[in-house]
């Protein structure tokens, strides 16, 4: 196989083009990474050092955790974590239950009404009323200012539903057929055949839902006005941006000297840290998910 060997030789040579491409990609990577380093750096800096240094990426003279200490004295950050975990713990199981049962029930649309229901579900991707009628509905249901408005405003995600259904359709039908011949009912087929085989896609969709729930802020901004029920993302928004929507701004009162940027960066850190920590391990699931989606779309 001399030809193949030769090709491999050519492939391994480092050309000028490789250099150019790597440089471009590394520049882009730096543009992505540097803002994160700056935020991490500022969150550990003191006002003095930030003001004194001309270009501070990371504090070298006097790193401190003072900003974090100040931040956790603010009751809002505790409320934020509590609310967000509540949304995650109730919301994700609801999302998974609704989406999984619907996806499996819809794998074969060979029973009366199934096709119509399927198209009605797809239609919601094309045509939706936006936030205004949903807000009015929540008002009439009396769910405003309760966690349930957030939980139910985001139930089935039609895109994830399609991804999951596509995966379940791709499972060999002979397995289901033979189970049926052996006398297994719909429930046994679901729990003992379909769900175990669908583990990869269940994991992927679960992670997507978890990230969506973690990042939830808009519905909460609309539906929740109570000061003791604010998700973390909105706490961050209130601390960083000039917020007049959910009440007061000041973090530690006007008398205590504080490093505003430092506390803001500390807030960014505590809001994105969980995503940051888990992401490297979960990345392959996310990529898998979009691949299945891409094949369909």
């Amino acid at each position: 196989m001399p030809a193949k060997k030769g090709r491999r030789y050519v492939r391994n040579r480092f050309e000028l083009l490789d250099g150019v491409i790597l440089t471009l990609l590394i520049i882009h990577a730096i543009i992505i990474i540097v803002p994160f380093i700056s935020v991490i750096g500022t969150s550990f800096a003191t006002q003095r050092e930030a003001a004194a240094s001309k270009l501070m990426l990371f504090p070298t003279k006097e790193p401190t955790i003072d900003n974090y200490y100040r931040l956790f004295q603010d009751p809002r950050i505790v409320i934020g974590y509590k609310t967000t975990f509540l949304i995650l713990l109730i919301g994700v199981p609801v999302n998974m239950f609704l989406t999984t049962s619907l996806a499996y029930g819809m794998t074969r649309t060979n029973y009366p009404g199934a096709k119509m229901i399927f198209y009605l579900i797809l239609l919601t991707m094309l045509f939706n009323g936006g936030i205004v009628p949903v807000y009015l509905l929540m008002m009439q249901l009396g769910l405003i200012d309760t966690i349930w408005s957030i939980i139910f405003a985001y139930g089935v995600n039609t895109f994830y539903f399609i991804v999951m259904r596509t995966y379940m359709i791709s499972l060999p039908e002979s397995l289901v057929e033979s189970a049926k011949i052996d006398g297994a009912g719909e429930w046994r087929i679901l729990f003992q055949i379909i769900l175990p085989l669908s583990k990869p896609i269940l994991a992927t969709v679960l992670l997507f839902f978890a990230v969506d729930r973690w990042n939830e802020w808009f519905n909460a901004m609309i539906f929740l006005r109570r000061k003791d029920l604010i998700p973390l993302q909105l706490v961050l928004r209130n601390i960083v941006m000039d917020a007049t929507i959910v009440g007061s701004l000041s973090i530690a009162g006007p008398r205590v000297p504080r490093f505003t940027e430092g506390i803001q960066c500390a807030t960014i850190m505590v809001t994105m840290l969980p995503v940051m920590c888990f992401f490297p391990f979960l990345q392959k699931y996310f990529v898998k998910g979009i691949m299945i989606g891409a094949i369909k779309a």
Partner: protein
Amino acid sequence: MAALVKNEKKLHLKKRIAHTGRNILLNKEKYFLILPGVVWYAIFAYIPLFGLSLAFKKFIAKDGIFGSPWVGMVNFENVFADPAFAQSILTTLRINAGRLVFVFPFPIFFALLFNEVRIGRFKKVLQSVFTFPHFLSWVIVASIMINILGQQGLVNSFLKLVFGIQPIKFLGTPSYFQPLVYITDIWKSAGWSAIIYMAAIAGIDIEQYEAAEIDGASRLQRMWYITLPGIKSTIVVLFILAVGYLMSGGFEQIFNLSNAATWKVAETLDMYIYRITFRGSVDFSFSAAVSLFRSVINLVLLLAADRISKRIGGSGLLA
């Protein structure tokens, strides 16, 4: 004769009903399974959809959406009389059309470059870096941008140190808003969007590259004449879909990146709906009229995009 045919038809219908009934019974577990999801869609997707009928009504809180009296097109007349409404449509078109030009090509570009990287481990690390920001909310990304683009932020410090430039108000200058939207969009999502193109590249027949190599084509030539044409259909389909989202999309980004100084150039249709509904005096009928207008335009755009995409041989939005 006619009676006989009618009778036969009746019999046929009866048979079909019986057949359907048996089918329903046979599949009762399936109905049970889809019930929670279907109920969710009915309540939280379809009731709001019908709630848009409020656009033709005068909303009276105690009567609810469905009890309020019909008023015809009055709300629409009011909407079209509001200059801010027309302005918001222009703003939406301007910002999103710019996205097609300045943001859309980047994922393709990255996928092409990325495909040429041959060091496996390095590739993995790079991919993690490129895709990570996509999983952060726009609240976080905007907060990061506010931090590094502020008066004493990293970018202004850098410009001052290297070029001696006075601090630039990146976030508070209306003319910088649009570029800011595009740059942050690329920063957040170009790496993630590139994955779809990379999947398309992976599907290109390797023999084409080998044949080209034997013919003496350089790597740049192979990129240009094999890879790019190989993903052309993917590019076209995604472009058409992007056109379909011309009037929607980008709300979370624009909402978090804009501020009091830039809201005039940032008020897209969705921003307008948010302002008239949740800020100041509320007229839900007016908001519903704008929402209905928005939904219909989006539907028309998406269906048109779907048609065109199918006609040129790609797959559409739905199935």
